[in-house]
């Protein structure tokens, strides 16, 4: 750290320095303003392009319509997509939260030395793996498996749920592990000294203390699952009709579907200027608003101070 200090020139005149300070402070400030402006532009462009749709299409038909026939019949109903988006998000959470949380507890409390490192590195690799690679695995492995499971086309909600639940694992594991490890040692020791077993300590002391952090991890996972586009697009079939929720189709799991994100990715290739493109932007606005609400909930949980009983 001495090297930069030695080469520091003190000889520059004070007036010169003041100008420099002023100029650079403003450059730094403008960079930060640019960040704020980009968020503003995103909101502006997505929502304005989307709201134009409502000049020609009744909002009720957009939100509650069951048919999406943008080219032939000018029908823009996104209800099936909203339902499908929520469905796959909830289903992948059901699959992913117990495993992810278990893995996080194992890494934070039980695993030691190289095995703990191994879990951490694997989670890092999973987090960095591109979503298209997961989509490829879905196409090559999961979809054929689903096809063999029940005589249906493999591209289905179930395949998407399996792939999504793998993709949100690292979010759940890494954040919960951090939170679990930050639980004060004294609390654990107090519980152990009262005669509780290690498992009782985990269930009754560590988990309750880490509660808000774990909820944050889950909410962030919801946000990631809801916004994922490419991997889901590759395995869900992208059919715009209402998913078949009958018991014959395992309450929807075996039927193909289309989510809000895959609607955008799938239709953008042939959407022309006009209501079709506007409808895709409107879909984007719906997605954006839902994600912002979810993120706000995560923010609320993160900023809640931890309850410490005195």
């Amino acid at each position, binding site marked *: 750290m001495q090297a930069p200090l030695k080469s520091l020139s*003190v000889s520059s005149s004070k007036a010169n*320095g003041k100008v420099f300070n002023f100029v650079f402070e403003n450059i730094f400030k403008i960079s930060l303003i640019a960040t704020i402006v980009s968020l503003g532009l995103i909101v502006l462009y997505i929502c304005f392009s989307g709201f134009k749709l409502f000049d020609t299409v009744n909002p009720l038909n957009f939100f509650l319509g069951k048919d999406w026939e943008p080219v032939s019949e000018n029908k823009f109903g996104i209800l099936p997509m909203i339902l499908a988006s929520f469905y796959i998000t909830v289903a992948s959470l059901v699959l992913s939260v117990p*495993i992810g949380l278990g*893995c996080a507890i194992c890494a934070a409390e039980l695993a030691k030395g190289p095995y703990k490192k191994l879990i951490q590195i694997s989670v890092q690799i999973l987090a960095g793996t591109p979503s298209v690679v997961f989509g490829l695995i879905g196409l090559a492995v999961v979809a054929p498996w689903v096809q063999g499971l029940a005589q249906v086309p493999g591209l289905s909600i179930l395949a998407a749920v399996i792939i999504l639940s793998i993709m949100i694992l690292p979010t759940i594991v890494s954040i919960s592990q951090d939170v679990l490890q930050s639980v004060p040692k004294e609390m654990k020791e107090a519980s152990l000294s009262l005669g509780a077993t290690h498992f009782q300590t985990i269930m009754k002391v560590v988990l309750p203390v880490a509660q808000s952090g774990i909820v944050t991890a889950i909410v962030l996972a919801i946000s990631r699952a809801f*916004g994922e*586009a490419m991997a889901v697009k590759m395995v869900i079939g992208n059919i715009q009709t209402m998913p078949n929720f009958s018991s014959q189709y395992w309450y929807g799991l075996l039927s193909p579907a289309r989510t809000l994100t895959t609607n955008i990715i799938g239709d953008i290739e042939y959407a022309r200027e006009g209501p079709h493109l506007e409808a895709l932007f409107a879909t984007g606005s719906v997605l954006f608003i839902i994600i912002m609400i979810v993120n706000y909930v995560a923010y609320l949980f993160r900023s809640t101070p931890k309850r410490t009983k005195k």
Partner: protein
Amino acid sequence: MSTLRESTLNNNSNDRIFVYSSEGICTRKNRLKEQLGFAALWLSSFLVLGVLLTTLIYIFAKGGKQAFSLDYLLTPPEGGRNDQGGILYPLVGTIYLIFGSILVAAPIGVFAAIYLREYADPESAFTKCARFAIDSLAGIPSVIYGLFGLAFFVSFLEFKHSMLAGSLSVSIMILPVIIRTSEEAINSIPQSYRDASFALGANKVQTIFKVILPCSLTGIFTGLMLSVGRAVAESAVLILAAGGSITSLPRLFGGSYPFVMPDSGRTLAVHLYYQATSYDNPDKVFATAVILIMLVLVVNLLAFVGLSARQTIKQKNK
């Protein structure tokens, strides 16, 4: 704790007492519960490891052989859907994307982090607004960035579907990553360094460029590598904003507007998507996947090296 009371009451009865690893006394019932619980926990960690390992092994087994031949890397794609060539153009596109997005996002991100840490009043409305913007940008899904790129860069600024439009959209996406990691790096510099610099007569800008930036360089490097990883892995944004042309080598400079990276192009991730969904040659998909995974791994490894370098510096300072 009812179970605890139960275990002490049971001391006199037939139930035997176990001393469990000197951490407490427990009954057989509690011990069984503990063993079952721990088995479930270990099992879930095996599951996570297993999923990752099988994924990696499967992909490498299917595509490894093809991927490690220079031939595949350096021949242009040809044959359309039959996919007979290599991945030269997507590779070039990926390099463009990395440099294009980092060159834009790195200065803005690092400068914004400097402003947040060295100038801004943490309680002011402006700072809170900036923090809200950074948090929100970090949470927006990539499709939205793609739609924005399509509406703003492609249509409004008339960049057309080009690598430039794609890179700029991605650079907004990676901004929050760079700002957060740089901020953390700057934050970990002890106040005494700044005081020492000021005491030597340096002004604020000199202190920032000659003390704070050099000291936080490894942290900033980690942030940059993490964002390169995200850019390489990104596909939705680029499909929407950069198009998917693959017929010729994308140019770096063009004669007419928008001058820099004016051609539509694919990155490896986008090429993988098209290979997987609409091409007929399954072997090559896995080869591309191997290359992509290796690239992301190397970048993440570099980030990790930066991170551990920072930690050793920290320990030295203590």
